[in-house]
């Protein structure tokens, strides 16, 4: 089998210890949560780090709590638990549906919410072995200088492939990042950038410790994922939606489409069309068409881009219909 490169494994007992280690290790260090993404990537020679800092022994990073008017989820909470927790299912169905859609049962048992948020972007030209990439001539994201998705492209367009990210963006969630410099809270909507090489604003020595989701009344949400099989697959396209109601009318709709490029895309038309509108079938169709217009899938992951594009309005319509729009 493909051998795992040699590395040093650190297993700190506190966040402070972990933060200090990461800071000290610099580019040689890499956080290890569930490992379901990191370890296969290491086997393919995609990770330069020579030391892993595991979060598994740190107490208090796992679990779901209601704190005041928000739901607070530890970053090391396994995705399976996020998916099945009754409070998450009630207050943030988009998140529980997204967590349930990650990988297969084994991935969800090992994989964590924080790990999924920090999932490396994916590309058909990147997630391959060293041999395969060498035969290709490598790529912009790793070991090379050219992009094979966009001829002459100077920016990496690898796809955000984490299912929970669009859901948490739609739910107006925030992450807590801790480091030797202290803690800061960042809205998930501002966590991601358009750079496929490193698509988060998390500093390399920062640790995602917590996710908080505001609890709002008259709010519903959901998640849809396009994939070819019933399990295991990364998304070919994903859509998360949040709907806030005000009586018979809509107060706000947030639509987030992902697995297109490095940054999950918030459908701009939602803010224009939804506030004050009635949840009709026409609105649903308008939003779906607007989403299609705003999204342009690339040939960066498996699946015909034209088909993925066609599926944007289909997924949006299905999700909004399920959430009672129209």
């Amino acid at each position, binding site marked *: 089998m*493909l051998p795992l490169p040699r590395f040093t494994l650190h297993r700190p007992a506190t966040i402070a210890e972990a933060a200090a280690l990461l800071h000290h290790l610099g580019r040689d260090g890499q956080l290890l949560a569930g490992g379901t993404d990191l370890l296969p990537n290491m086997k393919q020679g995609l990770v330069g780090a020579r030391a892993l800092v595991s979060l598994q022994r740190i107490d208090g990073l796992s679990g779901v709590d209601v704190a005041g008017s928000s739901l607070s989820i530890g970053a090391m909470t396994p995705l399976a638990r996020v998916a099945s927790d009754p409070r998450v299912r009630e207050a943030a169905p988009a998140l529980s549906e997204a967590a349930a859609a990650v990988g297969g049962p084994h991935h969800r048992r090992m994989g964590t919410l924080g790990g999924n948020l920090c999932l490396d972007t994916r590309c058909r030209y990147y997630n391959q*072995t060293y041999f*395969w990439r060498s035969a290709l001539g490598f790529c912009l994201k790793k070991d090379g200088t050219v992009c094979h998705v966009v001829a002459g492209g100077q920016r990496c367009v690898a796809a955000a492939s984490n299912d929970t990210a669009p859901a948490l963006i739609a739910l107006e969630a925030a992450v807590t990042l801790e480091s030797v410099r202290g803690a800061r809270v960042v809205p998930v909507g501002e966590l991601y950038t358009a750079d496929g090489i490193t698509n988060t604003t998390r500093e390399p020595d920062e640790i995602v410790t917590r996710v908080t989701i505001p609890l709002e009344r008259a709010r519903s949400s959901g998640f849809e994922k396009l994939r070819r*099989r*019933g399990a295991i697959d990364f998304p070919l396209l994903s859509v998360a939606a949040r709907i806030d109601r005000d009586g018979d009318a809509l107060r706000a709709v947030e639509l987030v489409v992902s697995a297109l490029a490095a940054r999950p895309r918030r459908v701009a038309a939602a803010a224009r069309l939804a506030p004050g509108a009635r949840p009709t079938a026409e609105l649903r169709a308008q939003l779906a068409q607007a989403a299609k217009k705003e999204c342009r899938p690339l040939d960066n992951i498996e699946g015909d881009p034209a*088909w993925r594009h066609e599926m944007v309005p*289909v997924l949006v319509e299905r999700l909004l219909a399920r959430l009672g729009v129209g």
Partner: protein
Amino acid sequence: MKPRSSGLVGERLRRNDLIRKVRGEVRYTDDLKLPRMLHARLLRCPHPHAKILRIDPARALASPEVAAVITGKDLPRRFGIIPWTPDEYPLALETARFVGDAVAAVAALSERAADLALRQIEVDYELLPSVKDLDEAESKTEAGLGASGRDNVSKRVDLAFGDVEAALAASDLVVEGSYTFEGTAHAPIEPHCALAQYDGDGLLTLWSTTQVPHYLHRELSRVLAVSPARIRVIQPPIGGAFGGKSEPFALEFAAAKLAMVTGRPVKLLYTREEEFYAHRGRHPMAMRYRVGARSDGSLTAVDAETRIDGGAYSSFGLVTTYYSGQLLTLPSFAPNYRFSSTRYFTNKPPCGPKRGHGSVQPRFAFECMLDRVAEKLSLDPIELRRKNAVDASSTVNGFRVTSNGYLECLARVEEASGWKERRGKLGRGRGLGVASSAYISGTNYPIYPNEMPQSAVQLKVDRSGVVTVFNGASEIGQGTDTLMATLVADELGLDLGAVRVVSADSDLCPVDLGAYSSRGTFMNGNACLAAARQIRDKLVAAVAAKLEVAPRDVFVSRGYLCAVGDERRAISVTDAIALAEARFGTLGATGWYKSPEGLGGDYRGGTIGASPAYSFTAHVAEVVVDEQTGVVRVEKVWCAHDCGRALCPTLVDGQIEGSVYMGVAEALLEEHVIDGRGLHRGPNLLDYRIPTSLDVPDIVSILVESHDPEGPLGAKEAGEGPLHSSIPAVANAIYDAVGVRLDRLPFSPGRVLAALREQGGR
């Protein structure tokens, strides 16, 4: 008349390795570890077609962890599974012919060290013109991949039976169609692995994940220039093969040579990626058909033209090329037939046999054609097939048919699926489709011409009441070990657990040609029965003497041999063994099978496709098509298969379920794509998708028993036949559901949606 049985044959027994497999106790090749063992890896060429100018292993050899590096020059003899087309070197000698072709091998103290050492081997290549697909294979003759070096042709077969043009001209209807299949891989759970040991006595022992230990034995001897008497080949239990392990591979030669060079055991395990380079998967084919019929539905002629993408090497390609035409003439066919098949070389991983070798692709095309003929003539497609069922004892291309349960297969799926009441009436988006097929129970002739048995067993009888079967055949998960134990236990009145099976070890077991062409049940079963009956006769004779009755008045029941008419007069099998051993001396027997002479058509190539017996299959598939997404879901598949007789019905069910699983996967999901650069589109199980348990339809397996006169207790094959018509059944069901004909596999959502758009635009 049903053969006499003491009760195990036909029973739903647990396979004899089930508990050990479930508990993780079965030792596969990679589980084996020997003292001082080294680990090897192969260096592979990153170019689709390149001349090797220089290989310098100096930097790799400088590492204290590296024991040896070998290149093509260390193994300069060609090999190939077909004796007439040996065109591979274990490690490419002068030219590498695809991205992933092996050019050097390194043995090191660990797998990691071997892997790192690969990057330290310097290779200079000169790039050569390369061929990426069938169109280029035809036009880009300068690539010179063929044997002559002047074109890219691997094999061409043109055969005609009857006057096709005249029959088509006289037909009321001629339907034409073109079909495309891009190729699929076997994707076994267990990757290829070989472990070699070269001991102080000069004996080379090779454990390998092979389906053909005997052919491997011969090729090892030839390529390594070691006497076969100095080679022992052992095939441990295998975690899936499906045809992908049915010829020698680079890793076996490399591990053996490195063991000889270093004097230490050497293991070589392929990565998942390397599985896709070793490949030998189902050939991409571009197929053109013309089918003629009279207005009453009787078929008049079939004309087929097939282009086959063979990849870089010959593999079984000669046979594939014949099979693409030869295996179509059952179960419903026309009296006139012509086919022209050409296999081309391309700079892609070599194709070979995958479950339903060479015949699954044409079956897809032809059964879709039949659906169209039926539609044009306003006939029920099942009626069309019935009307054209070949009921003669010989096919248009000269194959002998000894048993035929085809019509029962059709009737059973028709009934079970509610065909008459439901087809065409399920509303738009849901549909039923039918297709049918036939397949060989082993090839009548061995791969290298010889007059010796094709399958053999030796039985050893112990006084404890245990019988050991030393069986040449390869247990690859299909259950031959269980089947042989069942046959022996059934003959001798033993419990299944009292029969042990030692298989596929060239030092311990007689020669069997291997687990390919669905030959196991028929050939190995007959060999085993022949041996068991010799022992049985001796037990009966000894018991008859003891009970003072005639041998014909002794019968074998479970655990006892009894006097007919007075069952209280019984002797346990263990006691009977003691009596027989006292009377006849040490008990043992050999049994073998050799197929009948002279089978096949009297023309060049007429023996390819000849089999001692043919199985028959009919499928009905029920699909749901989502017209918004193009996603096709196969909800249920009814498969009726004529296996002659179900000796181990649970195993037959398993083969049917596995076949439908694989067929539906090839219909909807799997596609082995090599891009224009010669790069595999995604040589891993994330990008090359095989179905999860959530993606499998409900499968109803229906066993049909036609009792073949030459099969062991009437049995025929079940391992490959039930795959064939599953794919066109899905295609025809999609047509019933939404009215679009799909002629390119797989039926991915994008393609389905495009076809629906085209339909809407008309």
